[in-house]
């Protein structure tokens, strides 16, 4: 019997049991729907991140750390480590840090134009001019390698540092600070209060201090110092249309950041040690080449492209989770197909017997039932894919608005080729599911089958 004739007969047989076919197909469509969305999420977020990095990160910048646990996913808290006075502790995990010698080593590379360590800043509190309250918040160094947008005031162009005494306030801080209009904040003063921990002194040093300045000198030396540094608000950073998250720190210049970091870490093991540094590769030199050179010296280096890779890993995980649910739904629907087709074989015992009597081969009988399963799979896959595309297209504008993705950016992107491949894969899955019942049909004894009715 010709394949096309079998396929046509299989389709007709399904039409005769419309409700059952539709219900079985709907079970598959749930899996197809979820998998279609997972494909769309993957495609959409990948494109979004690629666009985001392209417009926001200087491709010539290198992110340098001493400890590779800080980048990638193999890091984290893996148990107690031997104490290293130079290491930084972040939520119970110990990380190797960069020292001045490391920075010098990076700067010594002929293809590097500049190196900027990430200062470890801890402000106790800050105040805003005209507001008596004290606020806590993150203070960090202004990142000149990432493009920002100002809601008020002005930001320097990409690659240029803000003025030494300037401070850039994120838009999300305004409400708490009692600022109604972003424009009003420009030119106002923010004062950052930093504390230096008490110095540990030896008995000899303490005795010498007491001998020199008496009890007052001793108190001053062991009490710890504090400092107030004032900045003028030069800009309010807007949340950019294409951004991972809001920039939620007070941004200060590199010079002040260095001063504050040196002051607060004075006398501690973290003095002049840095978690990470940003190195700029000279124009015309491939960042990958410099990365390889620096990694030979034992540092861990990530290029802007690597950063994209890390983000894509996150996307893959999210996509994997969504796809996982789809596959679970699909797994359940496989049993639906098997069940439906088994019942169908039992119902049509006489028909199978007749076809065998008329000379239809076992192989053709098996094929007939497998193609029926394939039709069910095809129908379910089409329904699910169309449902996913329909809902996704409907929701895309709303999602873009809610997540402030900016005009023209969509979280869900439906690409025809992967969806076609998905449908094909589901048809194959259905055929595999139909294999068990089809084998039963093929092995049916025609004489036994003709005796029923």
């Amino acid at each position, binding site marked *: *019997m010709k394949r096309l004739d079998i396929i046509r007969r299989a389709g007709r047989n399904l039409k005769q049991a419309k409700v059952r076919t539709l219900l079985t197909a709907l079970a598959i469509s749930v899996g197809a729907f979820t998998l279609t969305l997972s494909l769309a999420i993957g495609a959409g977020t990948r494109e979004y991140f690629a666009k985001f990095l392209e417009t926001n990160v200087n491709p010539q910048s290198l992110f340098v750390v001493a400890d590779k646990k800080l980048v990638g996913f193999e890091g984290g808290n893996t148990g107690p480590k031997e104490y290293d006075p130079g290491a930084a502790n972040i939520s119970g995990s110990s990380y190797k840090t960069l020292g001045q010698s490391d920075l010098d080593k990076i700067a010594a590379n002929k293809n590097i134009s500049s190196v900027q360590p990430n200062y470890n800043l801890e402000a106790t509190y800050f105040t805003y001019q005209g507001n008596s309250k004290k606020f806590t918040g993150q203070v960090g160094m202004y990142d000149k390698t990432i493009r920002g947008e100002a809601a008020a005031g002005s930001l320097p162009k990409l690659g240029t540092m803000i003025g030494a005494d300037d401070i850039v306030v994120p838009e999300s801080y305004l409400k708490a600070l009692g600022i109604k209009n972003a424009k009003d904040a420009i030119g106002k003063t923010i004062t950052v209060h930093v504390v230096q921990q008490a110095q540990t002194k030896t008995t000899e040093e303490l005795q010498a201090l007491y001998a020199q300045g008496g009890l007052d000198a001793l108190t001053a030396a062991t009490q710890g110092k504090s400092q107030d540094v004032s900045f003028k608000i030069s800009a309010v950073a807007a949340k950019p249309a294409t951004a991972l998250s809001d920039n939620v720190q007070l941004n200060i210049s590199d010079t002040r950041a260095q001063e504050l970091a040196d002051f607060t870490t004075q006398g501690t093991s973290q003095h002049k040690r840095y978690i990470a540094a940003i190195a700029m590769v000279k124009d015309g030199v491939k960042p990958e080449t410099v990365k390889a050179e620096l990694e030979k010296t034992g540092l861990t280096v990530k290029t802007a492209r690597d950063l994209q890779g890390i983000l894509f890993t996150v996307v893959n995980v999210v996509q994997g989770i969504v796809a996982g649910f789809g596959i679970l739904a699909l797994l359940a629907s496989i049993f639906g197909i098997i069940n439906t087709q088994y019942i169908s074989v039992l119902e049509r015992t*006489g028909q199978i017997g007749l*076809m*065998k*009597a*008329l*000379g239809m081969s076992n192989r*053709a009988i098996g094929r007939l039932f497998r193609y029926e399963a394939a039709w069910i799979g095809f129908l379910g896959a089409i329904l699910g894919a169309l449902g996913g595309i329909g809902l996704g297209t409907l929701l895309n504008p709303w999602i873009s608005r809610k997540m402030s993705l900016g005009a023209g950016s969509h979280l869900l992107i439906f690409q025809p080729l992967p969806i076609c491949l998905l449908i094909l894969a589901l048809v194959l899955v259905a055929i595999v599911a139909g294999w068990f019942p089809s084998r039963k049909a093929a092995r049916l004894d025609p*004489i036994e089958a003709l005796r029923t*009715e």
Partner: protein
Amino acid sequence: MIELKGVTKTYGKGGNTFTALDNINLTIPDAAVVAVVGKSGSGKSTLMHIMSGLDRPSEGSVTVSGRNLHDLKKKELDQFRAREISFIFQSFFVQGGDSCYDNVSLPLEIAGVPRSKRQQRVEKALESVELTDKTRQKAKNLSGGQKQRLAIARAIAGQPRILFADEPTGNLDSATGAVVEKLLFDYARANKATLVVVTHDQDLAAKCDIQIHVKDGRITEVKQ
């Protein structure tokens, strides 16, 4: 010609065996109209299954149109049945959800007749059983007699050399049964085909050229 030599069919194993056919020797010439007569359980259906190659004998040989069925592989046997043999059953076995056209088309599809030639043959078969007006109707909407006529159309569409009819009028009243009988006899005589009717109906058997009486798995009498 259908030739059976020493055909025995037993079911079961060990001490619990049942002999359905016991040393059957039989020759049915080409173009003969034959009745296999016997009560239910006599082995007449088993005899038909073995003659048509649906079942294999435990002992003995079956030669149909010069071919020993024992020597044919499963695939060859299927093809042989698809091209040369057809069946009519007491309970019709028409596919209710399919149209009359698709029911008749089935054996042609199985035999691999190209689509272009199928239409003409299907229409001709339906015409000969006077069901042309029902071509596009679903088989389940037909009456019993119409269903059996449809089954005859399906059986003759492929122009088989041998036609087996297992109690073809068993589910029909005498008037419609007579129509069905006439259709079968007409086909066999017009096409010089062998017709084997399995029945317990003496009146139907009397209309055939040869009557083979079967009892307890043995041939008791052959009337010419």
